[in-house]
């Protein structure tokens, strides 16, 4: 039986009771305490023996009895029993004799030995009209619940609903914050094992980039110089969150430790795999590239547990080679043998390119992935520059591609380039280019690791030849090409000038340096110096393209020999 709520005012005493309860309900209780408070308040205000609160689980559409004095938690579908009917209709139900009402479920009484006589069941609906749960108060002392009690209960229920909802939302926020802090911690651990700086490997330009996703992904990399060579690792653990971030960190640390203890590639790969197979959850694994590069023989050997594509840019052909993994992902199951490692001989200018899924699978707003064709395009455009610049460009391109779309996964890239032996650049024909030439030769010497002792000679040769080209090649607008190549013990300079008349610098006469000062002029001095300071100078002219090509070499041995020969001639006294 249900009764309409009569339009009557609360008495001052009742109001005081409700307000007292309301102030308690505003306190920052946890859910259990708050439920107990609500039940205690209901019992007090309605003068009832017992009370209980069913919380509404919106996902399951069930009522959950979290607290009832002396009764364990129970779940019940909405629609069942008096509480379920109340949840459906959101109407107060006042039953003066429960055992006369077919909706009453006597099983609880049977289980507890308590006898329910009368019961008031009312919906808990918050101010956003969300059903929070259902409150039941049982057995009014000395009678049944009347219309006044319904009015009181309705007022109380509104307060309780808001208080309970607040506690539930606060709880969810606290859980979220705990999760965020744990993720942040995992991220710190993950980042802490990454190399602090890129290793310096003679003849190589090795560089890596790690762009974490907002939520933790499971990427890692390593670039470390060890006794066995340059260790190159790129790993990606399945999934997101704390577990992958920590497991990939564990893998990276184990690999580094194994190699530091002297393990070879196969032993380290198998041992780390087997350790991970023991410790990782059954549905977890880590894709990983593990390679060792011998920078003296230029041989790279690697195993890849499910990590791909493994790209190599071939400088000689401008083409990309793709290599497949040699094994299944690490930790998937134990390994006893491995197929042979893949060995690549790195030639001058070759680049090994390893990127995690985060790059290839980053989508734009239409859901199209970045893909490896775009990666190859960028490598093609930037292969000749520093690898740090290539990586920066790659990241800029992915970000521009994905503009507006979220970064779903960690983005990790490792690139290792064998320096090409030649570095070249074109220069506008004009004296204004001289500072650029100076900068170019200094940079090229640094990148090609040529002995800086030879730099002043090359600078002199470049300037003398270039100024000659500017002065005498007036008919040409073509830029002058300058190339530097590291050779055994020294450097070779090549300069190409197009659209000009032939002028064989090897045939120009020497300056007579013994004439008195009145007869000395600066003319011809530049070429005179070049011929004396270089080991050899070559000149070549192509009629069809009207192209002059000058090549000269300087070696440390040649320089030492010239210096020794000079000791005899001495010099320093003026002869004027």
């Amino acid at each position, binding site marked *: 039986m249900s009764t309409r709520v009569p339009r009557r005012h609360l008495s001052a005493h009742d109001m005081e009771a409700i307000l007292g309860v309301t102030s308690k309900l505003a306190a920052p209780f946890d859910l259990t305490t708050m439920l107990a408070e609500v039940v205690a308040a209901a019992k007090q205000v309605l003068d009832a023996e017992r009370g209980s609160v069913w919380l509404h689980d919106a996902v399951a559409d069930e009522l959950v009895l979290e607290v009832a004095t002396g009764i364990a938690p129970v779940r019940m579908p909405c629609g069942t029993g008096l509480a379920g009917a109340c949840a459906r209709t959101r109407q107060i139900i006042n039953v003066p004799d429960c055992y006369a009402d077919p909706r009453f479920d006597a099983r609880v009484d049977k289980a507890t030995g308590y006898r329910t006589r009368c019961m008031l069941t009312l919906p808990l609906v918050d101010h956003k009209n969300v059903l929070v749960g259902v409150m039941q108060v049982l057995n009014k002392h000395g009678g049944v619940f009347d219309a006044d009690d319904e009015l009181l209960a309705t007022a109380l229920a509104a307060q309780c609903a808001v208080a309970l909802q607040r506690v539930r939302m606060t709880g969810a926020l606290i859980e979220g914050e705990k999760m965020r802090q744990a993720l942040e911690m995992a991220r710190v651990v993950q980042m802490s094992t990454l190399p602090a700086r890129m290793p310096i490997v003679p003849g190589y330009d090795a560089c890596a980039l790690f762009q974490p996703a907002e939520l933790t992904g499971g990427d890692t990399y390593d670039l470390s110089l060890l006794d066995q060579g340059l260790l190159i690792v790129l790993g990606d653990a399945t999934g997101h969150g704390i577990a992958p971030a920590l497991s990939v960190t564990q893998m990276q640390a184990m690999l580094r430790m194994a190699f530091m203890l002297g393990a070879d590639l196969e032993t380290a790969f198998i041992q780390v795999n087997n350790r991970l197979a023991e410790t990782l959850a059954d549905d977890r694994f880590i894709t990983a590239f593990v390679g060792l590069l011998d920078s003296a023989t230029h041989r790279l050997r690697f195993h890849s547990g499910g990590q791909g594509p493994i790209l190599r840019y071939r400088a000689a052909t401008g083409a990309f080679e793709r290599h497949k993994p040699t094994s299944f992902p690490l930790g998937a199951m134990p390994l006893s043998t491995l197929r042979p490692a893949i060995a690549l001989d790195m030639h001058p200018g070759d680049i090994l390119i390893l990127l995690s899924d985060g790059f290839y699978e980053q989508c734009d707003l239409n859901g199209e992935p970045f893909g490896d064709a775009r990666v190859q395009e960028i490598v093609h455009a930037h292969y000749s520059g520093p690898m740090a610049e290539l990586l920066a460009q790659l990241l800029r391109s992915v970000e521009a591609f994905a503009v507006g779309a979220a970064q779903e996964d960690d983005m990790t890239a490792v690139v290792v380039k064998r320096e090409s032996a030649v570095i070249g650049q074109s220069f506008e024909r004009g004296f*204004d280019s001289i500072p650029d030439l100076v900068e170019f030769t200094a940079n090229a010497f640094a990148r090609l690791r040529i002995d800086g002792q030879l730099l*002043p000679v090359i600078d*002199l040769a470049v300037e003398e030849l270039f100024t000659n080209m500017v002065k005498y090649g007036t008919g040409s607008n073509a830029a002058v090409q300058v190339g530097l190549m590291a050779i055994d013990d020294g450097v070779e300079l090549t300069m190409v000038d197009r659209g000009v008349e032939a002028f064989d610098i090897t045939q120009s006469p020497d300056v007579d340096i013994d004439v008195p000062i009145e007869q000395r002029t*600066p003319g011809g001095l*530049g070429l*005179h*110096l070049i011929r004396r*300071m270089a080991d050899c100078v070559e000149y070549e002219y192509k009629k069809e393209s009207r192209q002059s090509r000058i090549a000269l070499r300087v070696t440390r041995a040649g320089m030492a020999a010239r210096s020794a020969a000079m000791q005899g001639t001495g010099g320093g*006294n003026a002869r004027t």
Partner: protein
Amino acid sequence: MLALEQGPDGTVSMDGRLDAAQSPAAQAFLDGVQGTVTLDLSRLEYISSAGLGVLLKTQKRLLATDGRLRLTGLKPHLRDIFLYSGFDQLFEIEPARQP
């Protein structure tokens, strides 16, 4: 880049690179000196034939009025250039001053 400066004792110091790009400025500066002038080249990093031309022109002008350039502080790799070009015979070159 190249910086030229004449000290209170008349010594002119050159700091930087005396290449084809810097020669006009160096020439303009040295056109203003008279008599016997010491050139402190201890901070000169580089010289090309254009720079040698500047020194030659200045030396000829000063010699005509009984003056001259005296060079000090020449770095070893620049000394080679003076030897190869025979300029060691055109200038009085003093050994680098000991600090």
